[in-house]
């Protein structure tokens, strides 16, 4: 990919997305994190038990592993055990955050298997919300409703789901069955029968097509089936060491060190098209002008970092290979589109100028989605469709370097 020149970027043709979509989503849904679970010493009532090794689904939740864990440690678990909870290097893990997000956020550099400690007593109620009965399922359902509201302005499709569909949907999420999930999820998208490119439909539609939606007082979207916002959760962690050598990063000791929030991205106006645009909106302080970089070697180093995923991450599974290939295909196709004449060229040209401004800014951080560091030029719409979790949220993990006090001119605010 050529960097530096102001390339015009076009949307990838729908048919190509069809091919990429199928492959990428399968990889995301089958993604797993290898865990090695150690029973906390205070829990052991007999001879030490060997650690438990299990592959945890990236888009699942830690408490869903409880049955297998209890079975493995049955001989040594104290009889008065309580709710299960986990910690990583002393940090209690929030169970309502998907397992893959916790791993990408808290493990700065390669660690495989991921070593966690399991507890069955002394639940830290000051830090972790209760997790009893069907709390995990309802956490998922509420997230699904929230995403539905962000995209369509209401939660009707979720609220009106039949009992049968509810049970089946949750079963598919637990089992990681993509096809079953898609069958039910298709019924949850109002007016979305054809599985078309919803962002392009939205951007290309004229205001007269839907007078109600274009009204200035309608902010949350409409029933028309064209999402106006993208559900996004962003997690920002700062480290003290160089981003090129994260092995020296200190572990996260408290959740106060991590900033995480829900930050929906509004697509109306058409000025947010890529991952870069979304990051510029969410964490603008991590972008700096290219001319301001004093060391050319730093520029080339960061440039190479964006172009090539870290070798360690490649061994995580086939996720990286498939999705990186999809990313490459998307970028290649975008280049080819420049030379071809298509009906969307005029519209695309009209939107290039607002985006071009961000080309002059360099992103000073690491972005992770589903365990990969994607190209910043990846279309946000493609990410929303293929790299989101089953609850329809994109989880952006941003790792940035803590700014030194010696550089006051670059201090935040």
């Amino acid at each position: 990919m050529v960097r530096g020149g102001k390339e015009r970027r076009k949307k990838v043709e729908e048919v190509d997305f069809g091919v990429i979509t199928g492959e990428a989503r399968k990889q995301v849904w089958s993604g797993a994190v290898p865990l090695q679970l150690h029973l906390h010493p205070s829990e052991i009532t007999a001879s030490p038990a060997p650690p438990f090794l299990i592959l945890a689904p990236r888009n699942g939740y830690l408490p869903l592993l409880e049955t297998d864990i209890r079975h493995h440690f049955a001989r040594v678990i104290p009889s008065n055990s309580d709710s299960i909870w986990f910690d990583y290097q002393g940090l209690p893990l929030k169970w309502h955050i998907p397992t893959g997000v916790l791993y990408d956020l808290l493990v700065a550099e390669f660690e495989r298997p991921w070593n966690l400690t399991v507890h069955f007593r002394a639940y830290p109620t000051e830090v972790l919300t209760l997790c009893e009965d069907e709390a995990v399922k309802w956490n998922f359902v509420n997230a699904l409703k929230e995403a539905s509201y962000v995209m369509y302005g209401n939660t009707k499709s979720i609220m009106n789901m039949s009992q049968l569909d509810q049970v089946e949907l949750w079963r598919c999420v637990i089992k990681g069955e993509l096809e079953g999930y898609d069958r039910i999820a298709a019924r949850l998208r109002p007016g979305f029968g054809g599985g078309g490119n919803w962002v392009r439909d939205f951007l290309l539609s004229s205001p007269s097509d839907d007078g109600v939606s274009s009204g200035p007082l309608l902010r949350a979207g409409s029933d028309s089936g064209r999402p106006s916002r993208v559900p996004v959760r962003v997690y920002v962690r700062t480290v003290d060491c160089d981003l090129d050598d994260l092995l020296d990063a200190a572990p996260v000791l408290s959740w106060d060190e991590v900033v995480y929030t829900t930050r929906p991205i509004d697509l109306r106006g058409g000025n947010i098209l890529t991952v870069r645009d979304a990051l510029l909106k969410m964490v603008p302080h991590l972008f700096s002008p290219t001319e301001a970089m004093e060391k050319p070697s730093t520029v080339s180093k960061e440039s190479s970092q964006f172009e090539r995923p870290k070798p360690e991450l490649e061994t995580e599974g086939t996720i990286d290979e498939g999705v990186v290939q999809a990313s490459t295909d998307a970028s290649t196709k975008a280049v080819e589109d420049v030379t071809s004449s298509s009906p969307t060229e005029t519209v695309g040209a009209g939107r290039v100028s607002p985006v071009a401004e961000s080309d002059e800014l360099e992103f000073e951080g690491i972005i992770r989605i589903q365990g990969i560091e994607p190209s910043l030029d990846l279309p946000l719409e493609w990410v929303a469709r293929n790299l989101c979790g089953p609850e329809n949220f994109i989880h952006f993990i941003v790792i940035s370097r803590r700014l030194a006090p010696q550089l006051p001119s670059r201090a935040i605010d």
Partner: protein
Amino acid sequence: MDKLIAAVDHLVFLISVCFARSWDFTSWADELSNLLGNISIRFWENCSSIRCMAPGTWDGTLTAEEFERAALHLVSTWERCCPDLPQWTWQTSTKTVLSSTSDHACGYLVLQDVRVSSDQKDDMEKLDAYDDDDDGDDVEDHATMYVGSLGVNEQHLYTYHVVYNESYRVPMLFLQGRLQDGRPLQWDSVLRDLPVGSQHVSDQSRWTFLTQEDHPLLHRPWFALHPCGTSEIMRLVFSDFFLQGKKDNVFVSEQLEELSDISAVLEKQDTCESLSGREKITISDRSVKWDNSEERLASWIEKYILTWMSFACPAVGVAIPSRLYIESK
């Protein structure tokens, strides 16, 4: 007037029910949804006959900027009308990397340490202080329970936060309770401190009415009223406000008449009885004629949180004095 007061009572109940709509579909919820649909249809039928007065299609949401404006309006109104009560204050968020952009809420409302009398015996909280394996504390444990059984009233301290929800674009009510010695209240104790009607709704819809979740700014477990029904409720209430403006000095609007029809259906619900004792909300019998819909909406937006509190706060036992609404007209 009595008919109106009854209608308002049922409006409050209706809103509580909307808040508590369960994922599991039930027959009365189905009926309620149909009625809500009919109300919307009738509203638009009326609206289409009003020339140049339609306010557009406001969806009941706020921008972050409007949230702050409405919150500051609440603080000043409350301070002026209720100097004898605990005060709501506006707390500016500590600056973090994610709050540096201007189009996101930069603060939230706080009502600190409100005393709630509780007839509960806080045995569960006290028992937490003892290790189950420590047999030496058995005697002391029994003594504690004995003292509790004397029926001494406990004072629980509750703190309430109103935070802007970025996804639903509405205010969201968070609460946390603690004992006077500082130990936090657990789910069961908070539930038992709720008004009887809310306890009933919460039992039926545990996961969609009042839930424990991370506070979006403090990242600690707090209890929260689920916000997914708020925008629809506020849209309906605004519709009624709009109709009031149309009929100068005509107090009972068609919208409230519709609510009276609903009350006939809802009278079968047991929860109605528990709401009948709640403080009446007085509505001014004067309405001001507005020149245009934009001005009306701007005025309405300023009172958004004030209006939203009229049903959200009583649902968790926080009284909102009626004089707030008389003087804010």
